[in-house]
């Protein structure tokens, strides 16, 4: 954006100034003194060479499998046998330490501890504990790094999601993918650098909103592009009946002339963005059919991801599409899978959710690996916070619920410079507080940017008089999870 803006400001002020003063070099210099922000904002925007990794990146692309609604760490990767032992007993005040609860359970008289109804076993060389809900993810235990000590500041879905995606709870900032697109540019100019795929499981769902893939104050070319969950991931891409490719091309050329004229007259940088987007859409007419073409896939692909991968809009289909997008150079593929908000009916909901995501999540990692792409693709799996170790509502014989818990939760990462087959951090026996190596959301962002070859403190954008970063004023790279 600032390039175009600069151009625009330069056009107007230079012309204006030249007519008044007619002094060539000197006037440009004086003009830039008087209008320095307008003319040369770039110096303030970022100290980095945009569009290139600052240092050799370990990961070139990211696929973020966001488990929207917050899967319980206690039924996934954080094995706490003590909770089964103390099943039904009150959560000790020494553990809770008066920490904040949501409005949904704050008024409960009792906080009975509750153990996982699902068994846990150890997998892989690291001996990572993984619940019986995820047999397929367990099979990639040697490829992933489980971070058990994520923690966040927000306690409700919307702010927590927004925090995870943009580094701020309020939601007026660019999201991770937009920062990547801004900092590293696009690898494949025929597709958006940042795409978003949505799916919904059968569990209790929470909404996702377009602000989560917003470009914030960055140029709108960096905005996440949502692919449709129908048969055609990008709608209206085919030429209308009776229009061939050439006449489409001619039409776009003419349109671009009009738009350029409009840009000359009004100077709105969004007009240039629009011209660029039209050009990309034109090329997407060829690029997208390649994405949806499954003819080059092996028969085993369906077995690997599960038959659902053929049904558009399912999580499995999105995982397969994510691989194809990533393979085609899309910098950041963001999936959201809804349905993890297990306030009640956890045993049932988790089972259904796990059925939907387990196989395909593992398949994605295996698929990248067998193509030699895992070492340059960072895969992230996780939700926006964790869930309480105590029961929400009444404990039933075979059902229970867990409320939101921001103090600790588990995610996993794989590929792209992550130390494979490891478990990072430790929580207390109650699965309530972190005892070793906490990883905040800012730390997570700093680490992800680092893996992509960017120093999180240097990728900045000046907006409303101050420089912004994804990590704002915090964040430390977690070296312990980097290979």
């Amino acid at each position, binding site marked *: 954006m600032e390039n175009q803006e600069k151009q625009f400001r330069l056009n107007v002020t230079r012309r204006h100034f030249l007519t008044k003063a007619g002094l060539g070099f000197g006037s440009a210099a004086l003009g830039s003194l008087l209008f320095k922000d307008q003319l040369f904002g770039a110096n303030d925007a970022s100290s980095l060479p945009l569009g290139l990794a600052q240092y050799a990146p370990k990961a070139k692309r990211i696929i973020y499998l966001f488990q929207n609604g917050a899967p319980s760490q206690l039924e996934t990767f954080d094995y706490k046998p003590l909770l089964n032992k103390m099943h039904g007993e009150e959560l000790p005040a020494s553990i809770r330490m008066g920490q904040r609860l949501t409005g949904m359970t704050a008024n409960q008289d009792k906080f009975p501890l509750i153990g996982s109804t699902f068994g846990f076993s150890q997998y892989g060389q690291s001996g990572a504990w993984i619940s019986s809900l995820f047999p397929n993810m367990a099979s990639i235990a040697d490829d992933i790094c489980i971070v058990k000590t994520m923690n966040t500041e927000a306690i409700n879905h919307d702010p927590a999601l927004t925090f995870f995606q943009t580094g701020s709870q309020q939601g007026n900032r660019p999201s991770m993918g937009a920062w990547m697109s801004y900092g590293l540019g696009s690898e494949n100019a025929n597709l958006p650098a940042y795409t978003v795929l949505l799916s919904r499981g059968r569990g209790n769902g929470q909404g996702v909103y377009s602000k989560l893939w917003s470009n914030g104050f960055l140029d709108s070319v960096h905005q996440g592009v949502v692919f449709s969950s129908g048969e055609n991931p990008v709608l209206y891409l085919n030429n209308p009946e009776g229009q061939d490719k050439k006449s489409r091309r001619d039409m776009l050329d003419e349109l671009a002339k009009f738009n350029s004229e409009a840009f000359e007259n009004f100077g709105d940088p969004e007009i240039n963005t629009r011209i660029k987007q039209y050009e990309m859409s034109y090329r997407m007419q060829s690029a997208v059919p390649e994405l949806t073409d499954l003819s080059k896939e092996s028969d*085993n692909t369906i077995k690997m991801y599960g038959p659902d991968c053929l049904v558009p809009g399912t999580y499995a289909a999105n995982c397969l599409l994510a691989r194809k997008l990533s393979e085609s150079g899309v910098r950041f593929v963001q999936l959201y899978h809804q349905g993890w908000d297990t306030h009640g009916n956890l045993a049932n909901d988790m089972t259904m959710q796990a059925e939907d995501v387990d196989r395909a999540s593992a398949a994605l990692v295996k698929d990248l690996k067998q193509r030699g792409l895992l070492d340059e693709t960072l895969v992230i799996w996780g939700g926006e916070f964790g869930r309480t170790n105590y029961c929400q509502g009444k404990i039933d014989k075979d059902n229970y619920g867990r409320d939101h818990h921001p103090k600790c939760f588990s995610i996993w990462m794989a590929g792209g410079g992550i130390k494979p087959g490891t478990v990072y951090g430790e929580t207390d026996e109650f699965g309530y507080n972190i005892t070793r190596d906490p990883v905040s959301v800012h730390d997570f962002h700093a680490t992800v940017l680092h893996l992509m070859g960017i120093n999180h403190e240097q990728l900045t954008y000046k907006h409303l008089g101050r420089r912004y970063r994804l990590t704002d004023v915090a964040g430390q*790279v977690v070296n312990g999870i980097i290979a």
Partner: protein
Amino acid sequence: MSRHLSVLSNLIIVLQVFLIVFCFVDVSVLPPYVMFAGRFHPLILHLPISLIILLIPFSFYVQRRKEHTDLNSLFELVLHYIAIIATLTALAGFLLAAGGGYEPAALQFHKWLGVAIAFVSHALIYLRKAFVSRLAFWNTSLLATLMLTITGSHYGGTLTHGEGFFAFKEKKESGVVIPTFTEKTTVFAGAVQPVLMAKCAYCHNDQKMKGGLNMKDIASMIKGGKNGAMWVSGDPEKSLMIQRMLLDLDDKNHMPPKGKTQLSSAEMHLFAEWIRAGANAKKTYHALAETDTLKKIIAKIIETDPTLKEEKVYAFEAASASSIKKLNSPFRTIRQLSANSPALSVTFFLQEKFTLELLKECKSIGDQIVELSLSGMPADDQIFPIISSFTNLEKLNLNATSITGKGLTELAELKKLEQLSVASTSIKADDLSSLLKMPALKSIYIWNSKISEADLTTLKSKSKPIHWELGYIPNKTEVLQLSVPLPADKDKMILDNEEYIVLKNPMPNAKIRYTTDGTTPDSLTGQVFTNPIPATNLLRIKAITTAPGWISSEVTDISFYRKGISVDSAKLLTEPSRGGPLGIKILIDLKKGLSQTGDQLYTSWLGFVNNPLKAGFYFKKNTPINKVVISTADMTGSSSSGGNPFPPRKIVIKGGPDPKHLKQIGTASPEVPSARRPNASIPYIVSIEPGTYNYIELEVHQLAKLPSWHPEKGQKAWVFVDEVFFY
């Protein structure tokens, strides 16, 4: 001549206006190309100096020949040019200084003297006219200008050549080379010393030794200066260097002194922790424990300063920016691996745009290509002679290309190739035999090629130990369940008379079996779907997907409706708990809400929990109506917070000519499910007393309590309705 002079004098005024502006603003914000003009300062600065020196003899010469008007004009012209060149020099000087890196005190003097020289040389033009008859005054002015010039030049020399350049003392470089930071370097050499060198050794070196302290090596540091040793091992609080750096910036003992580059907090932290750990000069970074504070600080410093990072160093030169730019296109992306790396990655996109020519053109950057991807491109064996000329290639991705493998042998020349991906190609084991001894090769990806597990064993036995990735091999004992059949068009659940029902499942070779009589189909019973099914008023289809080698899908329960008798108008008589804003429209908009996933529960359904659904429907005069069909959401398997949409307990239909004259014309009491069942949209048909009606009132009562098998037993059940049909 006079015109020439007037142009010059105007130009001087303009330039000096700029000079005044430059005095009061920060010029460092100027664009790089303007800043570049600063580089001309050292080039032109000698002109005003020599001209001003020459001016003295010239002036005496002219004074003797007053009658030569030409000579006088020439003198005036020279004065003008001196003023111009002195001003330009000063302007360029400002630009150069803004780049930083100069000793501030000397810079201040030089700057203001330079400005003074520019203005004084301008003033000379007018002084000459004023003092035309008072030669002594004129000569004094000239001499003053000369002194000014010499002083200004001296400070300029100090800036460039350093303090004491004229002191006749031999100056030597300190000789410490900052090493690249690797894990084998010591903490001292890798982290502590470079910072000291960069920020302290300026004053504490062999030549300067301010305070008697020299930092050239650790021995001199331990020796310390006149105030004592730099540190007390193990005790940063008692260490002089730490105390000094923590003093207030304005304290005269603060180090580094005000005006010099200050230490960052990470650097101070580093010194403190290094001293706390015993100020050991031998300990390596590698030997530190992962949890060691010192290690974390250094890691942090490495992180903030990428130049300290271990980056792969390439021996080759970078390709020219113009040749990279020329080759870059949407179909052939060429990127530097990182901002400072000469190494390039080349990736091809869009199958229809790929030609061999595009690859051939890359030869101009062939030495720099380290990563190449032709993944998915229709590239055949002709690519190998071209690729084998990219001698620095490390990573080659040929996944899903059309190669047969015949030319693979040529890659053996690539001495640096580490990774080869040939997944989803038709290469065979034999094709790889010539590559097995490649010196740098570390991994080969052969998933979905013609190489079997048995082949791989043979290959492994013949090759050096490298990583082979055969990829996913299905577990033969694992049988998966198919996905359910779906309507071909989700928007076509409500059909016109001539429309047909089409079911589909994307699985190749799958069969769909269905029933319309409410029985459950399995892989043997039920009709195989081949032809579109004609719509009837209500067709409730139960269907499964079957295929050999797969578990049949769950039974899907989908209802298709034919558009019924159109409603003239309608109104809700009770408030819904959900779907309020759209109200009654939802029930008669001929749009089905999705039921499979509970999608659109908010926009396509009306939900009732506290009171029953009551609605009135008006028809054109005396419409014969026999049946009412209510489409409900049945989500006994759903989760709690979306409500629990259950089958209604009772449906009551009243009819008559108007709302005041109604009688009950039909009821239905659906069965309460005895266990959790898959989510579905279930229609309930209520046959009513045949007759003609102008108005029909519908009541749908929900179940008072969820049944005992439900996790939330005892809670209120909901009723969700998305459409009502009349036939």
